[in-house]
């Protein structure tokens, strides 16, 4: 099974992009599982389950930062999706503070940005953009050609290695190259590491323990099945 982690500011069209990916995976005979990580409200899991009949789940991170929550539940989530027979696990995360990057080595990291958020946005996003594999740019029809070009140039300025893909998430145009990126992604393994160093802080993830799965952490942890609890001395 393959792992795709999709991050990006709120309302940029992450779910719209993933919906087209789910559809195209299905057309190619592949089953996607979908996990949504959000702070306090999300209904994408129910909508996608109704629309495609695929296994979906959501986790509310509550008092945890969503990307912290992502690291905690990802180990369980891979097992869940594997048991559900999925070929690809799509994880959509709210990624609010932009300093973290939720991507893991061996998984595909997508960041979804909207062209309408201003030409300088790519300069402000940090590791959520620079550590992604692909930057997906949405809402391209709403801005001038000039701003579209500058937006892309700014992405390449801060993240030269990141592939930029413009999509029209309404019509599903430009989605095929994303499927090709998924195809080239290796299968997920039991031992996966967070790609970036999170900002300085005092939790196990913040101090640099990058192992995925709550079993590797202490302090306030969060399994997929239960609420957050304290583990350790």
């Amino acid at each position, binding site marked *: 099974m393959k792992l795709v982690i999709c991050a990006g500011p709120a309302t940029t069209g992450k779910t719209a992009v993933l919906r087209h990916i789910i559809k195209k995976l299905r057309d190619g005979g592949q089953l996607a599982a979908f996990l949504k990580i959000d702070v306090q409200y999300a209904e994408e899991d129910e909508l996608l389950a109704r629309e495609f009949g695929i296994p979906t789940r959501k986790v509310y991170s509550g008092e945890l930062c969503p990307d912290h929550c992502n690291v905690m539940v990802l180990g369980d989530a891979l097992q869940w999706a594997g048991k559900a027979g999925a070929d690809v696990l799509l994880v959509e995360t709210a990624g609010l503070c932009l300093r973290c990057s939720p991507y893991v080595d061996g998984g595909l990291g997508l960041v979804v940005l909207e062209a*309408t958020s*201003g*030409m300088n946005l790519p300069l402000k996003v940090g590791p959520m953009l620079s550590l992604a594999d692909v930057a997906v740019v949405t809402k*391209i*029809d*709403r*801005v*001038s*050609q*000039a*701003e*579209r*070009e*500058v937006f*892309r*140039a700014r992405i390449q300025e801060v993240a030269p290695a990141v592939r*930029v*893909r*413009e999509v*029209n998430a309404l*019509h*599903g*145009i*430009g989605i095929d*190259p994303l499927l090709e990126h998924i195809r080239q992604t290796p299968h997920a393994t039991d031992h996966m590491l967070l790609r970036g160093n999170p900002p300085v802080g005092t939790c196990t993830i913040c101090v640099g323990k990058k192992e995925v799965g709550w079993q590797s952490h202490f302090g306030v942890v969060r399994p997929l099945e239960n609420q957050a609890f304290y583990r350790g001395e």
Partner: protein
Amino acid sequence: MAIESITILGGHGKDGGEEPVRRIDLRMGDVVSIVGPTGSGKTTLINDIELFADANTPTGRRILINGAVAPAEFRDNPARNPIALITQHTTFLSDMPVQGFLETHARIRTDVGEPAESLVERTLAFANQLTGEPILVRSRMTELSGGQTRALLIADATILCNTPIVLLDEVENAGIHRSRALELLRAYRKIFIFVTHDPRIALLSDYRIVMRNGTVRQVLHTAADERKFSAKVTKLDDFLSRLRERIRMGESLTDLEAELEAVA
């Protein structure tokens, strides 16, 4: 890659029926209008062109460049995209000053081999020929009027982007000098496609693509008689513009009756 032509291969209408016109070839230098009632599929057609549809949009149309499927890089990199689309919804979101904005755009256009300052100067000069009130370079992009915004979008696409194909969706509502725009645009060897309800723009085009019920019904070449007639239409339209302008300025119109008789 030098673009010589784009080809529209017919798809199907909203009811699934086959599109009557199966193939249209547009060549460099053509000025084309797309006409038809509201809801007839005009905007959908230019969206198909802009997306390089390859039987993967709801209409099933295909768009060919120089007779072949468009290279992937056209979609991949907006600076390589040969099409600029200016719709009623397209706008500048930046609140930078006009001068700084255009310089920012010109600086990433490193492939054209012209200094940024001269590109910016030419773009502004072009835009100012289309507007009533000249654009002040120190004003912020978001302070521009509707007409100035449209004029600058067209100038930026034509000169700075220098894209070979420009799609313009109902620009007539924006208050730019339409005849002047067409005259200026004809000096550039590009394909200009107007979605329009405006008889003036339609008659100044080389041909018009007629839409009905989601499909292209026919392609009408502007006849010699129509061209002759278009001079009168322009006069009548100019008269109406003056009328509108005088109403705007709070003037009385009693002296205009004789002029109306003369025009009509």
